[in-house]
């Protein structure tokens, strides 16, 4: 029973303490707003933001933009994973291919996907395709690099065990190579999904006619700082939710070893 009580207090604590911080921040925001230090058009009040939130919900625009952005991230990120992981597998196993491609992959990995925006618009116009292309670029190269490194670092003893027990060919890929790198793949997917979520906002600000990034730009142009804050809050919360979602993958029993050793 004693254990249960401490668990309850811990659960209560982990809910209450962050809440206190959030309430304090909102209070601070209200105080700054009330002091008049900022011009009315430069800082909205929490009340105005709440009203804006209701307005956005009623019009349905916020939900539409949210779905649009999530769709683009899913496509771009999914494509990057679907192509990047097999490519990384191949590069990880072929030393000469690695030597040939590593410098160029590193180059693109370090080139901000935002620098591609002008070309994205020229090639794909304004809309889904441009945004998906940019998100793809943000995730593709990191996924290749991480998969490649993970494959190259698999202890050779696993392959020798596989040989001893007659695990060869395709079976070796699915029963040894993939499970051996899965923990690192999941970590990489978490990091790059976050990256994609950052990039989609920037991409839509410039190369979009809808989506959360476009909404931010639109609110700015309309001088609606209240809606701007609403959108910022939603963008941040969705980013956190995406990571929470991907964290669930690390709870799969057969990958726990990668995080507990």
């Amino acid at each position, binding site marked *: 029973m004693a254990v249960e009580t401490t668990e309850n207090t811990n659960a209560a604590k982990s809910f209450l303490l962050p809440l206190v911080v959030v309430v304090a921040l909102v209070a601070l925001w209200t105080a700054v707003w009330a002091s008049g230090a900022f011009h009315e058009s430069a800082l909205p009040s929490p009340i105005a933001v709440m009203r804006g939130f209701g307005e956005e919900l009623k019009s349905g625009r916020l939900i539409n933009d949210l779905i649009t952005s999530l769709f683009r991230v899913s496509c771009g990120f999914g494509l990057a994973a679907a192509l990047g992981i097999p490519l990384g597998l191949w590069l990880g196993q072929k030393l000469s291919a690695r030597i040939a491609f590593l410098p160029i992959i590193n180059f693109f990995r370090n080139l901000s996907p935002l620098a591609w925006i002008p070309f994205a618009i020229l090639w794909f116009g304004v809309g889904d395709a441009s945004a998906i292309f940019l998100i793809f670029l943000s995730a593709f190269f990191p996924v290749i690099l991480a998969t490649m490194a993970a494959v190259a670092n698999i202890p050779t003893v696993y392959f*020798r065990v596989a040989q001893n027990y007659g695990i060869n060919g395709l079976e070796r890929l699915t029963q040894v190579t993939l*499970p051996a790198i899965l923990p690192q793949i999941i970590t990489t997917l978490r990091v790059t999904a976050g990256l994609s979520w950052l990039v989609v906002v920037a991409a839509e600000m410039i190369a979009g006619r809808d989506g959360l990034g476009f909404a931010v730009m639109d609110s700015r142009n309309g001088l609606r700082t209240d809606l701007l804050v609403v959108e910022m809050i939603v963008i941040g919360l969705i980013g956190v939710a995406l990571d929470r979602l991907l964290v669930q993958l690390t709870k799969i029993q057969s990958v726990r070893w990668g995080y507990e050793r």
Partner: protein
Amino acid sequence: MSSKPLQLEKVSRSFGPVEVLREISLSIARGEFVAVVGPSGCGKTTLLNLMSGFDQPSSGLIARDGQVRMVYQQDGLFPWLTVAENIALGLRHLKKQQEQARQTDELLRLIRLEGFESHYPHQLSGGMRQRVELARALAGQSDILLLDEPFSALDYLTRLRLRQELARLLDERPRTVALVTHDIEEAAQLADRVIVLSERPAQIRYELSIAVKRPRDLTHPEVVSAIHCILTELGIEHDHERAAGKSLAALTE
């Protein structure tokens, strides 16, 4: 099948300019347990890699008859599989799931890890992991077992216990075994024949047969005498009575 599952004839292996093994000739009979002892870095793992077929000799011949399994110096269990799934790797030839499960259970009992079948390797102690490795290697129908210092990472008592366990497992499921170790006690307690390698380039320096049935006590007179012989051969122990007599003589002179 021939009666010699493993035969090495004047096998040498060099890595570039480094000569590791020089003209090793050795044949192991069916069901025989041979221990190879030698100092760290003398080429024991290299020798096992050659026996397993994973590595090729620079010169000489190796004949192998039967399916080989190796138990590795480092962790060779697949960390993404449970204990039962790891053991079942050794039973992949069985088509019937039921039969696989039955034999896995039997092996779990044999290594005294009932109740741990759904644990993952990282949830086990080093000694438990070594036992699972042994069970996996002994599962099914392999013929030749190559053991690369399988107990070297364990504490002394666990090592003693696992030696007994290995002897017992082999009693139930006989195999042809080559054990490589730097632990002379381990070799003397387990092997039918102990082969002592010299420093690099390793050559066979000394060979000794021990004709007592396994499992044996560490303090069995034959085991103690074998340890003494090997240590004397290595110049580490001396014949104390004779040595004592000599020094007495020196004193009285």
